[in-house]
């Protein structure tokens, strides 16, 4: 609805000096993170690979969530999200960086995956799976899925950037056409990597729900990142009017919905296994309820679902920037905890444990992602200025 509120305008460009200062800060953190990670790799490769796997999963799940969401915005022809879409696209554009970030994993397969070890060929169950779960195919599948995601990310980003200058509606329509097969590819692809990267840590166990859980958690974390980024830019005087309370309200609704969706699919997996009560299935949860891991599981139930469910339900909470910032940060922490709880009990069998390399690897991968993200804004606008729906979005109002 193009109505007649007088619209104050924002600066859509970050001055080059400010941009460079932020870039240098991220670069500094990234260099520190990678020095730490390399030191860890040299001294303690086993802990390094386990920590790196969780950090890698955390980062790429956010990038996949971004790609998913951008495509959904194109498919639904959303107007409300136009002013935040460039930030989403910039997060999506970090996907090609994961072709590099994925590269260390195949080097450490023996530390991580039982099926890659010599004993697998003798195991009656694992030797049947070795045609799929082997080092070559693991590597090929990883690069293939990240490659396809990157292709879509770069194409959609390029179209949106081109529209900044031309404003051609044709580009919006073409992005829609790319998004439909893109979403299909993304669901299949992220399920495959979810199976490969997390589920195959317990190679005898399987759950068809696993891919969706990975995608749902990532999409939720992505929404939390977008909220945090918008609020960070806002606190520095950017996007003050273009991302207003109405937009935060909708971002908050999405965060809430994706949090509930994660809980829905996670619980579906748990309940089916609880009800069937078959040892080869329940063992996955048994391992994750051992010792202090039980408290981590209970923390996820409360912190990743029950508390935010009731706390984020009122409209006022989603419209309050402070409350939204708190829950976005909290749910990001919960997403990391969720991945940690899925991955690490395979390594720390008797109870919760953490190496100093976990935060270091997380800093390394996230800051690398941050560098690519921030490179999208060097003398380039923070919002898709050529989008035909931009005016509509600026005047957007929740009914």
């Amino acid at each position, binding site marked *: 609805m193009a*109505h007649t509120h007088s619209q104050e305008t924002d600066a859509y460009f970050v001055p080059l000096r400010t941009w460079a200062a932020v870039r240098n800060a991220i670069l500094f953190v990234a260099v520190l993170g990678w020095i730490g990670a390399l030191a860890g790799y040299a001294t303690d490769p086993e802990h390094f690979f386990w920590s790196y796997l969780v950090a890698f999963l955390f980062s790429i799940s956010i990038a996949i969530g971004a790609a998913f969401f951008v495509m959904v915005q194109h498919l639904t022809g959303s107007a409300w999200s136009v002013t935040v879409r460039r930030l989403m696209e910039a997060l999506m554009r970090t996907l090609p960086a994961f072709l590099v970030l994925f590269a260390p994993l195949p080097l450490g397969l023996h530390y991580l995956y039982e099926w890659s070890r010599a004993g697998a060929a003798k195991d009656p169950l694992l030797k049947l799976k070795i045609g799929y779960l082997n080092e070559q195919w693991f590597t090929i599948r990883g690069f293939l899925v990240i490659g396809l995601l990157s292709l879509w990310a770069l194409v959609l980003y390029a179209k949106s950037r081109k529209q900044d200058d031309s404003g051609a509606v044709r580009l919006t329509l073409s992005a829609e056409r790319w998004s439909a097969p893109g979403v299909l590819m993304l669901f299949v692809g992220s399920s495959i990597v979810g199976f490969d990267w997390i589920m195959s840590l317990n190679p005898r166990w399987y759950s068809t729900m696993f891919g969706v859980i990975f995608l749902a958690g990532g999409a939720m974390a992505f929404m939390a990142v977008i909220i945090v980024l918008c609020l960070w830019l806002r606190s520095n005087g950017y996007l003050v009017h273009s991302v207003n309370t109405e937009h935060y309200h909708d971002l908050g609704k999405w965060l809430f919905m994706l949090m509930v969706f994660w809980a829905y699919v996670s619980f579906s997996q748990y309940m089916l296994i609880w009800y069937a009560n078959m040892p080869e299935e329940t063992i996955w949860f048994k391992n994750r309820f051992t010792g202090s891991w039980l408290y981590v599981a209970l923390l996820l139930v409360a912190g990743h679902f029950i508390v935010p469910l009731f706390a984020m339900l009122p409209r006022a909470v989603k419209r309050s920037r402070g409350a939204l910032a708190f829950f976005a940060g909290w749910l990001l922490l919960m997403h990391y905890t969720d991945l940690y709880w899925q991955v690490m009990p395979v390594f720390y069998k008797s109870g919760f444990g953490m190496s100093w390399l976990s935060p270091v690897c997380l800093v390394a991968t996230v800051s690398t992602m941050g560098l690519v993200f921030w490179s999208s804004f060097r003398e380039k606008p923070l919002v898709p200025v050529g989008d035909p729906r931009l005016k509509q979005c600026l005047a957007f109002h929740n009914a």
Partner: protein
Amino acid sequence: MATSFLDNLPIPEFLKPREEAPHYGVVGDFDTPEELLRAIRTLRVAGFTKMEAYSPFPIHGIDEALGEPRSPLGRIVITAAVVGLAGAVALQWWTGAVDYKLNVAGKPLFALEPSVPIMFELTVLLAAFAAVLGMFYLNRMPTYYHAFFNFSRAGGASNDRFLLAVEAADPKFRGEELKTLLDSLGSRHSELVEA
């Protein structure tokens, strides 16, 4: 003259024509939602409070323009949802663990895990019923007669027209004078509508 003549006739009171027919209000007919919103805002500034807008689709921001309070529907729905949730727990616990104990494959008579789908479904079911029925109630549906439809162009509100009614109950209601005001705000056709 005519009225005084009628007064002298021995006819029952209810057959006499009413001196002044009560009015529903003045309704104006606008071309676009923007013009409708502008008219509402102007009239609100002028002190009118009892207004109602009729449009073929929801218009963002019209509730605030009309000064409508937040709908209490959300509170009705959450109440029904909590009742549904509690009801589902009580139903499964009482039927399974109290009234008719049946051991199925050694599973506990009552456990939270398998109860969750029913808890979820009943919560959603009651919330949905409350949302639909609550909406009917708050919209005063069904209403079999509404004076708004005496407006000659009332049908436009379900096609391509944007109608604004200033109701007679408004303390600033001025009858015929209001037609001129609405016309000046862009109304294509304003009418004093009978109740």
